[in-house]
């Protein structure tokens, strides 16, 4: 087979990447917007200030438009394991299936049912019970993320299982649920969700402030976003770092590749930027900016820690698992890591500057900042995409770390043409859905929030569905 031949595995990987990245544009926004809307509604419930109800409805509409497409694309996510990866599914189902089933029963059912109650329950439920429905929806989304990440983390760092007749069987559900990887990944994802939510609320609020309309209203929106964003972005930087340490101990290749670290080093400097140095033939960058000892600290928690190099890890893996290439794509890993981390820092700086301007009562006047916040709406989407590219492609050539290779995991009964046609169908569908979603989000983010009706605030009609 020539290296250029496109195989079923390649296409199945393209499809998985497409489905997962697309799904994860919508999911984290739900994870973040749901609790923010819940906080807005709670503030209204406690204070009776109309502005908070208007904000609840305004951002609630964005939440709903986004929620629908998240649900729709989630189904593909569940089905595609069996469709494209039947060998994988049979291999891991005895472990991986359990958290997926639990997710449906314990989490997705909660969010899907209570979002309906929230949308249509404004007039039919007491304000207190209605408030509870949005909190339960938010809780459902957070629990849902946890169980999905338990499943994914098992692929990164398998625990609590034994192999029986070539298939993994669960032996310890607590080990599975308390997998260090899963816990850190969950905190990382929840914080990412909050950053998505706050970035969108801040950006949209700043756009309205730029126009100078509903200033009182959107200053409150911006304030809420900033109060949550400053700690969320700051904690995220240290959680991301802590995540790196866990990856270093379980998936050395992923870290070595994301740092383009060809040979074992101690202490190791962190490369901020480099030209060249991305292949075994050309391991030394022709130009680089490096912070001494920083990589040692990030990867091991000690400024004098040792980080294994790609070459050494490759030799070790060949000894353990036989001939083969065990290196992920170094250049892509390196830049994915940097785009994600640098956007993470940028989002923290934006939140910090915004909070400072707000305290100085200069937020509305600082037009440069307002524009920055509008542009920054794109940042979390880009950062999360590269975060998943790093996580999933950094595990290659394994689909389950050290247990099953991606090249052995696809569906033998599914032909290249079938995968290709389904990629075509989904690409077309996703483009149409993406365009419509973007147009709707943009339109509803730009309208003036309507004033409340004359009658009591609690009797405002349901958000249309």
């Amino acid at each position, binding site marked *: 087979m020539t290296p250029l031949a496109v195989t079923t595995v390649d296409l199945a990987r393209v499809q998985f990447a497409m489905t997962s990245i697309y799904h994860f544009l919508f999911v984290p926004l739900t994870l973040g917007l749901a609790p923010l809307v819940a906080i807005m509604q709670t503030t209204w419930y406690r204070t009776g200030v109309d502005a908070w109800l208007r904000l609840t409805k305004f951002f609630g509409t964005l939440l709903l438009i986004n*929620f629908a497409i998240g649900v729709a694309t989630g189904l*593909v996510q569940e089905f595609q394991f069996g469709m494209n990866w*039947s060998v994988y599914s049979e291999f891991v*189902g005895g472990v991986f*299936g359990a958290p997926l089933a639990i997710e449906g029963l314990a989490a997705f059912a909660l969010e899907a*049912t209570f979002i309906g109650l929230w949308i249509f329950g404004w007039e039919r439920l007491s304000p207190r019970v209605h408030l509870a429905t949005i909190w339960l929806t938010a809780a459902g989304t957070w629990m849902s993320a946890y169980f999905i990440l338990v499943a994914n983390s098992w692929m990164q760092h398998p625990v609590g299982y034994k192999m029986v007749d070539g298939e993994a069987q669960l032996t310890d*559900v607590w080990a599975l649920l308390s997998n260090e990887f899963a816990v850190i990944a969950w905190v990382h994802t929840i914080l990412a969700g909050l950053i998505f939510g706050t970035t969108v609320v801040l950006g949209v609020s700043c756009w309205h402030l730029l126009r100078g309309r509903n200033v009182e209203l959107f200053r409150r929106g911006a304030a809420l976003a900033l109060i949550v964003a400053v700690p969320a972005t700051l904690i995220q930087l240290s959680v991301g770092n802590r995540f790196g340490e866990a990856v270093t101990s379980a998936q050395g290749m992923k870290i070595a590749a994301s740092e383009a670290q060809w040979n074992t080093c101690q202490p190791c400097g962190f490369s901020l930027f480099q030209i060249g140095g991305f292949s075994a033939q050309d391991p030394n960058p022709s130009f680089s900016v490096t912070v001494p000892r920083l990589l040692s600290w990030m990867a091991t928690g000690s400024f004098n820690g040792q980080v294994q190099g790609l070459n050494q890890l490759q030799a070790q893996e060949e000894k353990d698992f036989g001939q083969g290439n065990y290196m992920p794509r170094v250049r892509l890993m390196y830049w994915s890591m940097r785009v994600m981390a640098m956007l993470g820092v940028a989002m923290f700086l934006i939140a910090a500057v915004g909070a400072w301007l707000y305290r100085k009562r200069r937020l509305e006047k600082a037009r440069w900042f307002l524009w920055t916040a509008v542009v920054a709406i794109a940042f979390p989407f880009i950062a999360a995409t590269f975060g998943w590219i790093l996580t999933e492609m950094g595990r290659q050539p394994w689909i389950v770390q050290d247990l099953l290779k991606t090249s052995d995991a696809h569906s*033998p009964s599914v032909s290249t043409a079938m995968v290709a046609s389904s990629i075509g169908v989904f690409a077309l569908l996703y483009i149409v859905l993406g365009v419509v979603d973007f147009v709707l989000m943009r339109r509803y983010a730009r309208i003036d929030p309507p004033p409340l009706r004359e009658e009591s605030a609690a009797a405002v009609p349901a958000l249309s*569905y």
Partner: protein
Amino acid sequence: MDLETIWFVLIAVLWSGYFLLEGFDFGVGMLLPVLPRNEAERSTMFESIGPVWDGNEVWLVIAGGATFAAFPAWYATMFSGFYLALLLILVLLIVRVVSFEWRERSDSRRWRTVWRWANTVGSVGAAFVWGVALANLLHGVPLSSKGDFTGNVLDLFNAYTVLAGISVVALFALHGGVYLTLRTSGELCERAALAARRLAVPVTVIVTAFLASTVAVAINRNDRDAFPTVLPAAIGVVALVAAVALVFARRGGWAFVASAVTVVAWVATVFTGLYPRVLVSHPDFGNSLTISGAAAGHYALSVITVVAAICVPIVLIYQGWTYHVFRARLGGGESAPRPAEPVDGGVAGVPSG
């Protein structure tokens, strides 16, 4: 009963729950082109399922996850083997899901028409393909000795499985019509009742034919005796006849119970015929996938059994409460008429009023 059999039954229950609940959602979607006579009535129909359709679809997500967890080999073979059918289902369900949220986001008539039809096409199509897919489990598909699907998409379509698809569409249309008689009022409610009456006889014929064929297919393809498959099949027929009688007697509530029993009996008949296999192989019957051959380890099954024992009752309680909250009938569309709307009832022969 061992854990493996319990999970086989539970998965049948999950599919029953999905068909019972999403069945009337789909039915309402199918009746969208024929029942309403103006935009307000269409909105009423959407609103009749608006608060609950997402909760109903949860049962599909759970059925999929439970199959993956309890029977990895079944999930793997079925989902890869029925590849193009499932691709079609996903596309249909996706356009249907977004139609609920997006339709109301613009007043443009063309926009609303597009998403209304997306809902109808999604409902008819997904119901049909689910019927075909489940019937194929029993009718049998070509499997290799390793349990891999060796056929192509055309193997999934034959007289029996197509009849299954049509029977699901027909049954859901009736189920949705009966549901609308409970949730709407005025003229729309009258037209829903009329639609249910018109559907009664053809649905009875089609579904009875399917249930009878299923007993035969279980005998011929799955090496089963007529008993016990004939039991749920008979219950299905009796419940359907009762549903029809109750529709004509204008006993909406009981008619809904009876049509719900029929839907459950449809699933129960297929799964009873399927036991003790999960996917029949044809022509090489020996390659069939069995419950014990496809099941996950005992420990994993114990874990999800405990979780299901705790969570399923809780989910049923809060979903039941949701139906209680939204029990009030919706206006029949008399309010806020849109005079410019053309009358487009009668497409499928259901006359207005």
